[in-house]
């Protein structure tokens, strides 16, 4: 059997997914017996021009989200060349934390970054521009898109592996599936079909709680369900497969595993909160301190892929 030709591309993201790939460690040497990585800028000297001239690929693995026109161009190019496209990691699957920027406009973002931070005295409001006429010639930058988007918004995705970054176990399963060439299908998720709660070992007793509180003021009980402790844990709304790692480390689930059989992860969490919060009296706003920033709390990794996915008006603050 000839080796699979694989390209790895880092769109708008942090590079943690590339490090995650390295973290399969010795197994990487095994994996490389079955696949040929033909494009991986972080580790190899291959340029974009090479990509344009590459013949067809078997697999393109994309991490990061679509934040500028270059991301979009390369992902579409990869899609046109690859038999299988993998959205790898929370940014690729759900848009990632940078999706929180969709609460405000692109202009808000540029203004804050280049004019309002305390280290930038910028009275002329200089901002990076798409075309810059340097004395020697023109320089080009890719334009930032109005909204941050997950990969599926610009190209059909065959496999989804969520997680920030995807856990090693799931990466190995991805390579098994890719080399075996089976399990094709629309929206095929590599991960558990159950929630993080299914993998969580904590004790659940009352299944109800009076309020959702701020974590910074609370001691963390290592045995008891976080929701029952009155702390917001995204476990019920989040795809498992990670072994509930964060919860094992005694912090609530942040939701990086992404949507589970719904189109809106935050809405699913609201559903779960509705069930666990006390029903005796109408819940007061004071009892929902952990939800002072509902988008940050419920859509930390998935705002871009959520149903509404953007703020209507300028302003990215809480309520």
């Amino acid at each position, binding site marked *: 059997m000839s080796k699979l030709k694989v390209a790895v591309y*880092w*769109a*708008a*993201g942090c*590079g*943690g997914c*590339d*490090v*995650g790939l*390295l973290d399969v460690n010795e197994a*990487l040497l095994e994996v490389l017996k079955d696949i040929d990585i033909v494009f991986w*800028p*972080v*580790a190899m*000297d*291959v*340029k*974009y*021009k090479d990509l344009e001239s*590459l013949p067809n690929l078997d697999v393109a693995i994309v991490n*990061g989200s679509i934040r*500028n026109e*270059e991301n979009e161009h390369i992902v579409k190019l990869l899609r046109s060349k690859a038999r299988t496209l993998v959205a790898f990691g929370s940014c690729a699957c759900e848009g*990632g934390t*940078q999706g929180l*920027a969709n*609460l405000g406009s692109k202009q808000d*973002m540029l203004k*804050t*970054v280049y004019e309002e*931070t*305390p*280290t*930038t005295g910028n009275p002329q409001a200089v901002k*990076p*521009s798409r075309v*810059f006429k*340097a004395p*020697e*010639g*023109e320089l080009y930058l890719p334009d930032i898109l109005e909204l*941050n988007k997950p990969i599926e918004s610009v190209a059909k995705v065959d496999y989804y592996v969520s997680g*920030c*970054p995807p856990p090693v176990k799931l990466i190995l399963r991805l390579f098994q599936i890719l080399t075996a060439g089976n399990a094709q299908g629309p929206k095929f998720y590599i991960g558990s079909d159950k929630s993080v709660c299914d993998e969580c070992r904590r004790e659940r007793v009352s299944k109800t709680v009076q309020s959702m509180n*701020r974590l*910074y003021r*609370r001691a*963390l009980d290592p045995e008891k369900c976080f929701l029952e402790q009155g702390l917001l844990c995204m476990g019920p709304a989040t795809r498992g497969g990670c072994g509930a790692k*964060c919860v*094992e*480390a*005694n*912090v609530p689930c*942040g939701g990086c595993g992404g949507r589970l059989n719904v189109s809106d992860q935050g809405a699913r969490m609201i559903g779960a909160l509705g069930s666990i919060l006390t029903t005796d009296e109408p819940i007061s706003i004071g009892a929902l301190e952990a939800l*002072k*920033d509902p988008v*940050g709390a419920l859509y930390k990794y998935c705002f871009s892929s959520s149903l509404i996915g953007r703020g209507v008006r300028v302003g*990215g*603050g*809480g309520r």
Partner: protein
Amino acid sequence: MEEAGGKTMVIVEGRLTIDPVTRLEGHGKIDIFMDERGGVKNAYLQVPELRGFERFCVGRLIEDLPRITSNICGVCSPAHHLASVKAVDSLLGLEPTPTAAKLREMMHNGYMIADHILNFYFLSGPDFLVGVGEKPAERNILGVLKKYGEGVGRKVIEHRAYGQRIVEIVGGKAVHPVTGVPGGLSKPISEKERKEIEKMARSCVEFAEFTLQLYDEEVLKNADHRGLLVDEDFALTSYDAGLVDREGHVNLYDGDIKITAPDGSTYAKIRPEEYFDHVAEEIMEWTYVKFPYLRRVGWRGLTEAPENGVFRVGPLARLNVAKGMATSKAQREYERMVETFKRKPINNIFAYHWARLIELLYASERVLELSLDEEITDENVRNIPQESTLKEGFGVVEAARGLLLHWYKPTEDARVEAANFIPPTTCNNPAINISIRKAAGKILRGGAVDEASLNRIEVVMRAYDPCMACASHILGGGKVEVNLYSADGRLRRSVSI
């Protein structure tokens, strides 16, 4: 892949674009403008990405920031996680418990081990270990493995994994750790975990010594490579900044910020809270990354110090500002390096690699020391804040690539009103741009351009171990392209390398 290694292209009146710059973390693009005689007129390093963390951290709960801002960079995620949690502590007027502080430092040094190994063997090292002029397809970690054999390869992978494992034990996850919470950590470590860390740290100390020997063999004893270390074209005069402990030694997790002038004298020694009094940032229209400089020295464009406030951070800068290393083996290596150069500050950019390996040894020794600390398995790892008035929070650590600062201004209800991040690659951005201009002028003299000479330009950049993800926290991605432009500024040819 197009086979281009070895091809020679002569470019006249051109412009060269290297896109993407490869084997570094994040996206970058170098444009080089040539004149009629094939000399270099100018060169620009552009970072084509911005994600806007300063914007979308606004409105978030303060306790969410260590997890959100870790996503600024997945390569340096423990550094961002810890700088952030330190900033949140400072905002709440809170100190971590002694054990929590030690565990955080342990996590941080574990990260440093993994990251410095990543840089030397995977990213910039292949240029020295495999050869800067080798075929692109060989010039990577796989080429390193091929040359040194699977035994060395397994050692490299194993010890990088140890660094990651130390982060995982203390931080919960190796990439994007999660245990940093206001006032300390969410969990202690067990005696079993301590033993595992001790064992890994011992092995890392040996591996760091092995790597320094390898550096000796391949760089110091290789006339070409050694020549680079003293080549004035690869020197850059700048200020240096880094964290030092009370004794003036390098400390990667905590301390005062010391800034030294190009002549080695102390320019300032400040607390993190004073950072903004000293550092300001300039914006250029041709890149999304800003240009930090020393406010009081001023900004005079892309020129060298002392007239211009350009400063450098990272392994070499840290060793330049410090009196030495706080651990014995690393101190001996430090002394050997200073003796070799017979000067301080050392300003040749290729010395970054050497400094990085000395730090690898230091970080390994420091994790070992901490693993033997009596308090390290103590269960008291968190102080819970009492009611307090919130103030601006500053958090500073030394990321692998240099000084990293997080700053948050809180609202009354403990959300973020404003945030600022100054990551190391942003600090180095002016210096990297100046270095590339100087190096391009030397390397491309006469207009002969081949893949190897273009790679030499990238080598200059890789010395800084630039992390474009960090720098682009403001936009998003890792890459370089070389375009040739004629004197009238039109694209004549693109070179595929």
